[in-house]
């Protein structure tokens, strides 16, 4: 196996999100030339330039595009790494980051927020709370069973279904005034979040990502059978809990602020395994990088495709589902 070219590829993939980030600053309805864009970006440090840049351009770059792109980076990385972590933990690359009920819990929390509190509180608080609650429920309920892995997944499916049913109930009785806002939230979007929202979610996501990325080698061992992992010296309950808690936190944080964006946690780690092998020392960082890149690109497409704004979740589904079908056929090479 040629090691050098491979390495170059990995380094490129790790740097790619930054490149796409910079390029994405240029994408948008208002055309801003690269020169003006560069000036604007540097203007906080160069006061003389600050005076030259029109307020509109400044706001477009710093108040509209920058937060949106940062959110795409963070959410893409969070969902991908969360998916990769859970896939190792559950020893199954067909697991995704929502499998423990996070998306249904978050959706229900958001719906409750819109219906009960309207505009008084931002939806992400309840969305986050119920996302975490869903996972806690899954863990509590599945503890009673003998077979840990299977029952957690099954319980996840059940709890998801439960919260989906609750969501339908809320939708049924909600006034049309609240439904509009809920509908937009559910579709997933990256444009609503402002700096205030990012100030809370980015650090949470950042911290969680750091924990999981530091544990990247450990995932190799965690993906063995429970008995083997324990015999190798893994403190299984503690380490599993850390992984589950962290993955849940970053997924809930990402989902609560950006809505439900599907397929990233499933497809990206799988793609990464096909490119770089199954060693989690590579899979995790590359998943973060590729997840961020994919979401950035999907968002770029979503906002430049037509005169109107297409929810980014549609693109991740449109791209993700066919890719998933293709990858499914090659799954046997990577997993048994």
């Amino acid at each position, binding site marked *: 196996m040629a090691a050098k070219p491979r390495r170059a590829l990995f380094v490129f993939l790790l740097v790619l999100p930054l490149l796409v980030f910079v390029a994405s600053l240029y994408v*948008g309805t*208002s055309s801003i030339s690269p020169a003006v864009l560069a000036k604007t970006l540097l203007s906080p440090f160069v006061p003389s330039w600050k005076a030259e840049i029109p307020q*509109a351009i400044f706001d477009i770059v710093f108040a*509209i595009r920058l937060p949106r792109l940062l959110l795409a980076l963070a959410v893409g990385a969070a969902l991908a790494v969360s998916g990769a972590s859970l896939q190792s933990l559950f020893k199954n690359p067909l697991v995704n980051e929502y499998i423990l009920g996070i998306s249904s819990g978050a959706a229900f929390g958001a719906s409750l927020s819109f219906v009960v509190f309207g*505009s008084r509180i931002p939806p992400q608080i309840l969305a986050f709370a119920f996302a975490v609650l869903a996972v806690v429920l899954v863990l509590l309920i599945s503890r009673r069973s003998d077979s840990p892995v299977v029952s957690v997944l099954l319980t996840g499916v059940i709890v998801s279904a439960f919260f989906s049913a609750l969501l339908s109930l809320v939708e049924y009785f909600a006034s049309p005034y609240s*439904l*509009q806002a809920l509908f937009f939230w559910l579709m997933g979007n990256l444009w609503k979040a*402002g700096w205030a929202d990012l100030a809370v979610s980015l650090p949470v996501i950042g911290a969680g990502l750091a924990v999981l990325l530091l544990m990247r080698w450990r995932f190799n061992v965690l993906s063995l059978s429970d008995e083997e992992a324990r015999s190798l010296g893994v403190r299984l309950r503690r380490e599993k809990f850390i992984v589950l808690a962290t993955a849940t936190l970053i997924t809930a944080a990402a989902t609560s602020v950006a809505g439900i964006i599907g397929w990233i946690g499933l497809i990206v780690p799988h793609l990464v395994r096909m490119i770089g092998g199954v060693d989690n020392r590579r899979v995790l960082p590359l998943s973060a990088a590729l997840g961020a890149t994919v979401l950035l690109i999907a968002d770029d497409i979503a906002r430049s495709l037509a*005169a109107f704004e297409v929810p980014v979740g549609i693109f991740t589904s449109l791209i993700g589902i066919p890719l998933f079908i293709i990858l499914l056929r090659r799954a046997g090479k990577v997993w048994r």
Partner: protein
Amino acid sequence: MVHRPMRRAFLLLVAALLVPSFSAFAQTPTTLTDTLGRNIAIPAKVERVLSLQPEITRLVVALGAADRLVGIDFFLRNHDDLFKVVFPGQAKLPLVSMANYNVNLEVLAGLAPDVIFGAPEDRNVIEAIETKTRIPVVALSSMGRFARLLEELRLVGRILGREERARELASGFEARLSGIRSRLEGLPHSSRPKVFLSFWNVLTNTPVFYEPVNAAGGANAAEGLLSSYAGTLNAVVPLEKVLVWAPDIILLHGNYPPPRRELTVASVLADRRIASLEAVRRRRVYYTFGFWNWWDFAEVQVETAYLAKIFHPDRFADLDLTALGNSVFREVYGIENGYSTLCRILRCEEWVHGR
């Protein structure tokens, strides 16, 4: 389901593009063509009426045929405080639909209406009613256009045998419009303020066509979007597009009950991202009444005058909105202080004054 407004709007405008006028073939009260282009046979005498479409329900009341209503839809029952004043009798009518636009077919059939008015966007509901109950369903909607609203009025008037009343209401409507039009005489196109409408509680959700804006001497910033894609009534635009359009005025959807408004003048003025807009800097951000895809016949006339005062204060300085509003409501619904009541519900005394 939550995608209602989008889907509904989509179907609506596709239909609108296909069938520009729905009364073209309607000569006798017994057959007509509705918004969806369907030919429907109506009995000559219509005594029992059910409307699932609030705009039509309000027209039925305006036409003086409220006593023929046999049921009421969820929106007018639960979410329209004005209608409770316009037609208090609605509280006694059986409820026939739920928040997700589902109808109770059994209740419906049991009420045995002679005709049902439906919303074109709820096509599957219409088909379910027709196949299961065989009651004729007429799908009508004005889609933000006065001409269609007036045609609707005439059609419903004809169905109910209240053509005279319909003519009365229509001429009142047209008189007011021409009154406004005459004051706008000689207005150069460049003097029309560019207006961005932010409806349905989302900053970037805008109706691509909303005639009161045009009739009041303004220009809808989003009007160009209609040709770019196969039609929705409303479009969600990227926020940057709003900046590119650089509207002079921003109008917010005021028909939301005040506690339910997520998008408020205060929140828009405080939004950092659009702080550079002329409209925001000059604080030309106002509420307007707006519609929930369905108009109130009286309200929309007042709205046009209200907007005219905002767009061209010099030409409408002497226009007494409250007097005009109350007289419209008196003429249309026969109630006193209708406009004042509406203002109280929507707290619109805060809109026009105290800026």
